[in-house]
Each structure stands twice: as structure tokens, then as C-alpha cells.
């Protein structure tokens, strides 16, 4: 009962559309555009009816797993419940059909939404200014590093290097490079944290910034963060924070208060806009006031009670995206913040911490915790005990699917030996967490008795283990007739 591709379902002459009758004279395309500019047809493009379209995509959807079906404990991804009221409000006609170039006088509602979100995020970050233009987390990182370059350039020297801990997300070094910097990797200490002494030795006046994730990717709060920031600032370097793990801090600690100069936040993580199979997201960036003049153009300003886009930003790094950012995602993030309110956001953070620590407590007897340091919103184990039986973290992950759960994050961070990185988020019930722990414990027992079985999981899915090696060796990235 596999589902054919659209191209295989297609049959010549089928249609799934109907256009209104044309109320103006038809135009001869060759005459209007020149014969050489008119294509004959779209070769092999699908031809199907409406009922076949909805069936195709409905059937395909049933091969997917989503938060709406159960726990999605991907570490670092903050897969929390996506409230549906947010989807509803983003589709209100006056918002969804707003054109970015319609007159400002007819865009005041959209602009107010952006303005309020900037204000709330500034409060949450502890930052002086926020831009909503970046389209995603990595795009926010990129914006942040460019802000640092522009600032340092204005001080006389953009410098050469960006420090990145070895535990960082891959986007951090990739971002530094495309923003024109060299990357220097900083080794974590045995607690998975940045060692101030190592840092001290690494910082000199060639260092433009350090990119820090806090809590870091092993789910631990950098206990020396204030000291670290001081070390960097003393050498004229800036502190960039990757806000991927901000869900651990909202209402409890603010990056702007512990020494961060600039951070991005993935609105699709902390503020619950849907991941949608990989996007769209939004990567709001918050900065301290010394970086504000460099924020992307245009900036949102208020004058005489009217919102306006200010294009007069002479020190700005320029645009990072057309128009004003992923507005539809911003609407959802604001709706999320409004639903919680200040006290509710803090409450959510505490539940996120509680859930991670509860999982840690229940699983620690069966899996080796990677670091002793207290966990924040996620906990990271290593597969050392299971490796003894020849079973690795990736195998356990696939077996977990048979138990009805999405796997945790596999083999990241790289500094952990065969990492199992688990982030439950605050929207999981105790019952769901208990069922998840019982499943992992059952797998741990299976590994003791039948490791081979676990190594060939999953068994209950409609697709058995997918051969990724062949896919990469002989890439087939499009259908051909």
C-alpha cells in the first residue's frame, strides 16, 4: 500500500482546477511575449483531479509523525505543542492578505503586531533593541555576527576570528565563515562547559566575538557566564549567544543581564511556531544599545501615534531579507506570548526544567549521563553501556520508533560519546514522560537479551530502516519518467 508519486498518478487530460471565465479579451502569448519566449509545455508536470490531490497528500501525511501524535523529544529542537489558535489568527484576512508595499496608513495593524513583539522579546531577552527581519535561527546568527563586524568596524577594526566551543551547533562555525571570519574552536572542560582559563588564553585582539550557547548543547547552564563575558569584553570582543536553548531561561534569567551583547532566538522553538517539517521559522535578534545603530534596515518607529518604517539607518548592515521578515511566524509567536503572559512564560520554563530533570532521574539508572552538572531543559546521555553490547545510540533511536515515539537527537553534541540528547519541553504530561521512560528502559533490557534485534529496528513502521548510504552514493534527487 505504498503511495505513488504525483507523476505516477498523473494521466494526460486530467485537471484539478477551474479558473473564472476570463472577463477581458484573451491575448496571444506569442504576439505579446515573442514566440521564442513562450514555452511549449511543462514537460511531465502532473495532471490529476482534485480528489486525487487531497488523497495523495492525506495518505502521505499518515506516513509522518508529529507533535500532535505524541512526544517529540529531539534535543535542542524544543518540539513543544503548537497551539492552533495561533494558526487561526495568522490566517485572518486583513493579516494574511496584507501586501508589504501597501500604504503604511493601511498597515498599522501589522506594524503594531511587530512592534509589540519587539517589545516583549526585548523584555524576555533583557536586550535594548530587537530586529524581526531574519528568517530563521541560522539567519539570525548570521545577522548577529554581521552586527558585531559592523560595530567593530565602526570602532576601527572588524578583527579576524570568532571563537566557537567544540560543543556548538554546526550553524555557529558555518555562520562565522560566511560572515567573513575565521573560526577558532574552544575545547570544553570535563563538565561540558567553557573553561574560563582556556578562554582567557585564547582571547586576544584578533578575536571579534565568541559564540556561546547557554544553556549549552549538553543542557547545562554555563556557570561562569558572567566571568566569561567579562574576559571577552576586557579584550574588546563581543559575546554572541545562540538562543536555541532559550526555552530554559524565559522569565528565569535574561541573556542581556548576564553579559550577552547580541543573541538570536528561534521563534519556532521557544515561542512555539510550528516546525512544519523543517520550516518556516523566524530568528529574532536582540542587541544591547551599542549594536542598535547597525540593525537591518528598515526599523520600525512610532511618530504621532502612527507606525512607520524608517529607511534612514546610515550605520545599518543593510537588509538581510526582503520586506520585514516572516510576519506570519511573528503573529504566531506573539499569540503564544499573549496566551502565557509574563507569569505563564515563567511557569512554562519551570515545567520544561522539571520535565527534563524528571526524565534524567528516571533514566539515569539505565543510561550513562554524559555530565554530572545539573540539567536545565534537556538531558544528555551517552551510549557507553549499550555499546558494550554492540548497540549504538542510532539503533536505540530507531527501536524507540517501534514504541510509538519520535527519537531523541542522535549523536549530537559531538563531544559526547554516542549522545542521546533528550528535550521533552513543558508541554508533555507526566503520563507521556512515564511511557517514554518505560520504553527506553524496555529497550535497555532488550539490548541485554537481544541486541541484534534492536540493531535492525524499526519493525512497526511502514518503512523499514532506510538506506541513507546508497542515497548519498548515487543521488537521485528528482523523479524522471
Amino acid at each position, binding site marked *: 500500500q505504498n503511495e505513488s508519486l*504525483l507523476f505516477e498518478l498523473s494521466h494526460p487530460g486530467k485537471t484539478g482546477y477551474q479558473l473564472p471565465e476570463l472577463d477581458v479579451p484573451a491575448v496571444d502569448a506569442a504576439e505579446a511575449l515573442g514566440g521564442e519566449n513562450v*514555452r511549449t509545455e511543462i514537460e511531465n508536470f502532473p495532471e490529476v483531479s482534485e480528489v486525487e490531490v487531497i488523497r495523495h*497528500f492525506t495518505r502521505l501525511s499518515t506516513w509522518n509523525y508529529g507533535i500532535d501524535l505524541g512526544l517529540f523529544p529531539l534535543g535542542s529542537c524544543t518540539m513543544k505543542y503548537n497551539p492552533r*489558535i495561533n494558526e487561526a489568527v495568522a490566517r485572518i484576512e*486583513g493579516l494574511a492578505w496584507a501586501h508589504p*508595499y501597501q500604504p503604511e496608513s493601511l498597515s498599522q495593524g501589522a506594524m503594531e503586531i511587530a512592534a509589540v513583539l519587539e517589545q516583549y522579546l526585548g523584555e524576555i531577552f533583557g536586550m535594548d533593541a530587537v530586529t524581526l527581519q531574519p528568517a530563521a535561527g541560522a539567519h539570525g546568527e548570521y545577522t548577529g555576527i554581521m552586527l558585531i563586524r559592523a560595530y567593530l568596524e565602526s570602532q576601527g577594526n572588524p578583527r579576524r576570528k570568532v571563537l566557537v566551543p567544540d560543543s556548538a551547533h554546526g550553524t555557529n562555525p558555518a555562520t562565522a565563515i560566511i560572515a*567573513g571570519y575565521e573560526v577558532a574552536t574552544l575545547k570544553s572542560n570535563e563538565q561540558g562547559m567553557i573553561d574560563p582559563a582556556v578562554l582567557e588564553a585564547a582571547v586576544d585582539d584578533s578575536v571579534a566575538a565568541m559564540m556561546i550557547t547557554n544553556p549549552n548543547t549538553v543542557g547545562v547552564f554555563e556557570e561562569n557566564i558572567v566571568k566569561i563575558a567579562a574576559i571577552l569584553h576586557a579584550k574588546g570582543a563581543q559575546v554572541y549567544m545562540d538562543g536555541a536553548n532559550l526555552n530554559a531561561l524565559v522569565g528565569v534569567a535574561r541573556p542581556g543581564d548576564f553579559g550577552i551583547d547580541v543573541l538570536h532566538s528561534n521563534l519556532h522553538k521557544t515561542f512555539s511556531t510550528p516546525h*512544519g517539517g523543517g520550516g518556516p521559522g523566524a530568528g529574532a535578534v536582540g542587541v544591547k544599545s551599542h549594536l542598535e545603530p547597525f540593525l537591518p534596515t528598515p526599523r520600525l518607529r512610532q511618530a504621532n501615534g502612527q507606525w512607520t518604517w524608517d529607511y534612514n539607518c546610515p550605520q545599518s548592515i543593510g537588509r538581510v*531579507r526582503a520586506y520585514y521578515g516572516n510576519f506570519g511566524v511573528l503573529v504566531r509567536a506573539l499569540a503564544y506570548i499573549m496566551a502565557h503572559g509574563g507569569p505563564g*512564560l515563567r511557569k512554562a520554563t519551570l515545567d520544561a526544567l522539571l520535565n527534563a530533570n524528571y526524565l534524567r532521574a528516571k533514566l539515569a539508572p539505565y543510561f550513562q549521563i554524559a555530565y554530572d552538572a545539573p540539567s536545565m531543559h534537556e538531558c544528555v546521555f551517552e551510549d557507553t553501556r549499550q555499546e558494550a553490547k554492540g548497540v549504538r545510540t542510532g539503533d536505540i533511536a530507531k527501536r524507540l520508533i517501534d514504541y510509538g515515539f519520535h527519537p531523541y537527537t542522535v549523536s549530537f553534541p559531538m563531544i559526547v560519546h554516542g549522545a542521546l540528547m533528550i528535550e521533552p519541553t513543558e508541554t508533555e504530561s507526566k503520563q507521556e514522560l512515564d511511557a517514554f521512560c518505560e520504553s527506553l528502559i524496555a529497550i535497555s533490557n532488550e539490548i541485554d537479551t537481544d541486541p541484534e534485534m534492536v540493531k535492525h529496528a524499526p519493525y512497526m513502521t511502514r518503512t523499514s530502516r532506510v538506506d541513507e548510504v546508497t542515497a548519498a552514493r548515487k543521488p537521485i534527487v528528482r523523479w524522471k519518467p
Partner: protein
Amino acid sequence: MRYLPHSDAERRAMLDACGLKSLDDLYAHLPAEALFPRNLDIPAGKSEYEISDYFKQQAAKNANGYASFLGAGVYAHYRPVLCDVVVSRGEFLTSYTPYQAEIAQGTLTTIFEFQTMVCQLTGMEVANASMYDGSTAVPEAAMMAARVTGRHKFLVAANLHPEYREVLDTAARNAQLHVEPFGYDPKTGSIDVAGLESKLDKDIACVILQSPNFFGIVENIKQASELAHKHGALLVVVFSEAVSLGLVEPPRDADIVVGELQSFAISPSYGGPFAGIIATKEKYMRQIPGRLVGETKDADGNRAFCLTLSTREQHIRREKATSNICTNQALIALMATVFMSVYGKQGLRELAEQNLAKAHYLAKGLELPFSGPFFNEFVVQPKGRTPEEANAALLEKKIIGGLPLGRFFPELKDSMLLCATEMSKRADIDAVKEVLL
């Protein structure tokens, strides 16, 4: 709190299991100076009813009930309801990047279909699983051309969407690469071929131009491609109006095609989220940024799909990645995929033909400064009024007019960019003509 599933009794039991006394113990190890000493200055949580009410009130302050003739990269096309129906299914909406192929075949299959349809539309051989949008796809293409050619200069047409150009400028400046503009022909509105030719040399990584260009005019891709290739440069062709591909010959001679799929069922949404594409020749496949889905088999020999060639990507390659892109626009790309399926081969053509007909009906008799062939938008000089005055007159008829061009092109301060689509009604078109004539 309706999104927090614990009862207080359960919180208590869980704290006990953790050996903790109170919720505050959960962050007691944080350095005191890092703790936030007060409450967030954000009003208390609101009910669904209040949230819905708030956003309706904001929406009411925007344009409502206006006919609009704005295009300029964001087009008003009818959105078949199936598109929203499909993307609203929780299995698509609430899923993650499909790293775990065994429970993500839905997303993976639709992306594979998306990649294929983008190739079919653009005349290219490979396409990735979407970029943020058209504007950010431009620097990605430029960087890719720089990697392929080992060169460091980009020649960019002046009639590329000005905001796309600004995004490219920002990226190039930081990457220490050079952007060099070349002009357009003031008679036709197409690129100035002589100007392009005069600037081509062995430092040029790529020539970047848009078709239909920002003025709505279809460019001669073959000619541009021959020029670029003669100098060892790649040709990057950009589009912002995807509907044109239903009718207009695709840029088969380009090396890289980037563009914006907003026209394919993606609501204008005050500028985003949209979905960009990047497509290229097979030989450049390993230089493409972002996600790629490939076909393979599962352990039982059945066809299956998975993310592939991830050694190009940041999470494996880190500082050696082709791009820092991580999130793509999967859900929006899915919306576009459903749109393409609904319209299909025949529908996309008829849709494009209707757009052509509406725009040409609108243009007829108006004062057009450019003579090049246009698809569904064009530059017009209102008679006896400034563009701003004409727009003000139209607003009174509940019509949003065109984009005044002086903002981006001082030499065109007397002109505006007007767009008509299949949603433009004849009566509104006639009303616009009356004001502009």
C-alpha cells in the same frame, strides 16, 4: 495554563522523583547575578477569545476590502483551499526536519515531488528542498557561483528586485566579495546588453539577472548566457513571479535559477513567510546549499526517501559547509507543491494566460515608458499626476494602486509598477485606467 499538562499534584510527585523540594530548586545552581530578579513586564495570560479578538482588531487596521494592483515581488493569486487543508494536518504542521526517515516519509516524499516540479518548471536538473525566500536565495546562488568558479565578483542587473539586491549587497560586503551593477536599456526596460558585455572579465563569478525582471519584462536569457559563458562566468537567473513559468520559456540556459514561489498559494502575509528555490545543473549538485531529499530503498527493498548529501551541510561540515542554512521552508514549500498539483500542467498555463490577458488589458492605452515584452506587471506613467497623486485618487475608490518607483529608481520617479492577476476584476481594472489615463 491550558498548554501545560501538569496538575500541581503531579508537579509535586515529579519534584519528589528528582529529589527536589520546589520548582525554584530547578535553577538554584545558576549564579545569582544571572538570575532575573523581577517578573516579566508582559500582561497576564489571555484567553483564546481575547487573542482572537486582539488580532482581528489589528487586522481591521490594515487594508480590508481593497482591490490591489501591487506586485513587485508579492502577487495576489487565488489560494485553492486544498493548500491550507493539507498544511493544516498535524502530521505535516507539527513534524520536524525529516532526519528520522522511517517516520517522515510524508514530508520526504512531498519534498522529493517539490524538487522535481521545481526542476520541471525551471528547466533545471536539480533543486533543493527550498530556501527562505527569493531575496536570500540570491546571495546563496552568488556564493555558489563563487565556489564553482573561484572568482569573487558578481555582475548584477539594475532591474533585479531592489530589495533582493540589497540582501546580496549585505552578504557580499561581509564575505568580502564584490557586487558590480550593470544598467538597463531605458527604451526597452531590459538589461543593457552592451553594458553587461563591457563589464564582463575573468574576475566575474556570475551574471545575475531577473526575468520577468522587476519591471515585469521578459529578458533574453540565451543572449545573456552566451555572454556570461564566453567569459567563464555562470549565469544566475532570478524570478519573483512563479506564475510566469506556466507560459514563459524557462531559463534553460542559466546555470543557477533562484526565485520566489510566493505566487503559488502562499499568502502575502505582509512579506513572509515565503519559499525560495535554488535549482541548477546536475554537475553543480554538490555545491547547492540547504537540504536535499534523495530516493533510496528501505531494508525490504521498497522505495523510500531520505535527506541526502548532507556532507554539504553545516551540521556535518560545520565551518566547511556550503551555507549555514538549517531551517528551510518545508511547510510553505508543501503549500506550493499542493498548488502545483491542483493546477497541474494545463492549469498553470491557463492561469498564466489569464494573468497575461489581464495585465495587457490594463496596459492598453496607458503610457508605458518601456517597450519590452511584459508578463503580468509593467511600468506606467500616470498622465498629468504623480504616482502618489494617482494612488491617492485610487484609494478613494477602495483601490490600492501601483508601487511608485522613485523610491528605488530616482530616474523613474514619475512612474509606478502596476500588476494585474487572475483576481483583478475588469471593473476595477477599468477604474484604474480611468485614473491613470
